[in-house]
């Protein structure tokens, strides 16, 4: 067990995979200098510039070329710098990478990890702050992963590199420096949620950094005598329906929280699935950003932010709600 940051945990998983498998390589802008968030620092010194490859500012080519290289027998880790910039490579991801195996009748695979740092981070404004994970969950062919802790950024990166499907790997920019214990013997599986806190009164479902906020909210609720269970989905496709359903069967209350826009967000999928499967004590609830844009000024940025107090308030109100 070692204490390390969220950024270093993923880097460790990458370095270990690159030592074990010569076909694993990383490609993206500025990687030779450690990447924009230094999440690759030191790797070029060990693995050289061919396997920690710089790239022109050509998102479509980074994504498309990595895909071609995957079909030719390598296992690329693609760095998109900001999830927002990955939109420049949408055709390559959605029309090509996600569909090739199916369209070609199973002749090809795209074993790729597509890293897209996402989320609100220090007045980054509308083009550097988005959380678009629900878009990717909507695309058959993709695995969508949103780790929230250093442990998961280690274990899930390891799983993503080993995976023969393309994995959209969304790391949250606000927690690069967050430290936590990492047990390198611990593995993770896509579609298996992490029970972050056991509780009997209300089920909080989340992923990415908002799962951490749910843990904070659960502590606030505990002070009021409300025992919240926190389920961190970790991957939203596939997602652990069984864990969520088992939990709400126990608690009878569901609150899904995420940083992304509430409208048509993945929370709606979770709520719909639960609502048509399990009778609840109260109406289920989702909490996400208003369908607004993320601004530069901190007070404006905060208008779009889901916070731990908002989560605990929403959960508390569910305890008071009359039965559904």
């Amino acid at each position: 067990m070692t204490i390390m940051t969220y950024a270093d945990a993923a880097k460790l998983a990458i370095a270990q995979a690159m030592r074990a498998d010569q076909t694993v390589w990383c490609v993206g802008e500025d990687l030779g200098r450690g990447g924009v968030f230094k999440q690759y620092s030191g790797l070029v010194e060990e693995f050289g510039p061919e396997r920690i490859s710089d790239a022109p500012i050509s998102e479509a080519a980074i994504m498309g070329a990595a895909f071609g290289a995957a079909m030719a027998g390598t296992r690329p880790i693609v760095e998109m710098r900001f999830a927002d910039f990955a939109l420049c490579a949408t055709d390559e991801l959605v029309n090509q990478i996600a569909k090739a195996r199916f369209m070609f009748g199973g002749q090809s695979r795209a074993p790729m990890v597509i890293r897209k740092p996402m989320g609100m981070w220090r007045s980054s404004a509308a083009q550097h702050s988005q959380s678009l994970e629900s878009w990717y969950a909507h695309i058959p062919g993709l695995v969508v992963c949103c780790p929230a802790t250093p442990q998961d950024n280690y274990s899930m990166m390891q799983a993503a590199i080993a995976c023969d499907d393309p994995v959209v790997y969304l790391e949250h920019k606000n927690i690069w420096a967050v430290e936590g214990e990492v047990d390198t013997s611990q593995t993770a599986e896509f579609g298996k949620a992490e029970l972050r806190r056991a509780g009997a009164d209300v089920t909080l479902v989340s992923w990415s950094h908002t799962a951490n906020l749910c843990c904070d909210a659960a502590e606030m609720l505990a002070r009021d005598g409300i025992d919240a269970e926190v389920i961190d989905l970790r991957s939203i496709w596939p997602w652990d329906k069984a864990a969520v359903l088992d939990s709400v069967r126990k608690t009878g209350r569901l609150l899904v929280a995420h940083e992304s826009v509430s409208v048509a967000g993945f929370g709606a999928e979770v709520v719909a699935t639960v609502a048509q499967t399990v009778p609840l004590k109260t109406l289920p609830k989702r909490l996400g950003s208003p369908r607004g844009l993320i601004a530069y000024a901190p007070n404006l940025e905060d208008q779009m932010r889901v916070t731990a107090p908002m989560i605990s308030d929403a959960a508390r109100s569910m305890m008071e709600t009359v039965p559904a």
Partner: protein
Amino acid sequence: MNLSNFDRDAGMARLTMMERIRAFEETARRAAVDEELVLGAIHLSIGQEAVAAAVIERLRIDDYILSTHRGHGHTLAKGAKPEAMMKELLGREGGCCGGKGGSMHIADFGVRMLGANGVVGANITIAAGAAHGIKLLGGDQVVVCFFGDGAANRGPFLEGVNWAGVFNLPILFVCEDNQYSASTLTSAMTSGNVADRARALGLRTTEADGNDVTTLAATAVEITDRIRETGTPEFLLAKTYRISGHTYFDPATYRPEGEADHMRDTNCPIARLRTELAAAGVADADMDALRRAAADEMDSALDAARAAPWPADTTAFIDVQDIGSPAQEAF
């Protein structure tokens, strides 16, 4: 025409390939029009066969090609079996993509044909990446990426060609300039010359008559041998003409009256090669026999495709993804 070093056997081999491509597409068109067996759009390369035949002739089985929505010729030339291709066009079991792709996504990884593409220009970055993969793995294969003149106006053209230059990759970009972007004259939508764009990106660039299969094949040998030797990308602009419409049901009325007929009469690559072969002493009857053999081969492919069943319904859920596949979704 210089007959002194004309290779009759090579000429007959090229004629065979071009007749097979022409016959495959004429057969597919009949299957679409007369029998409604081909359900989706197919894009014919009638008039453009020389580019596929000439450029791919020199390639090894382990070299890669990537193609376009107009990809039957490239696929056949790389060595795919017409029966599996025809089954794919009909959406049948045994099609090279199991009936999931159809004409626009035809692929045969067994002969390293990494797919046609339904998105114009999208294959350019992917092809550059296949070459990148070869380089990383230390292979000596080359990649040939075919695309049309219209694709040169898409962003991936700049990004993909630049990529190949920056990383010095073993790839030949082949722009098949058939003069039309669907129903629009490409020259009206293109600033400057496409070959100049490749030159500006630092690639050694050759401009060629794409309907002169004999000369083009010699040019392609030089270029692909050089790429294999040096590992350095090059660009080939092959001027050709799409005698057929954009799709098989496109009457192509946007073209000046008589233009396609004139090109068919004066610039058909098959007719031009027949003239060369006749001058070299090949009897018309021998050349006609190749044409009949090609037609018979493709008729047999169509018969087999017609007789093949639809793919099993359950295959709709297969080969989407291993993890979280629709087949595993319980509710």
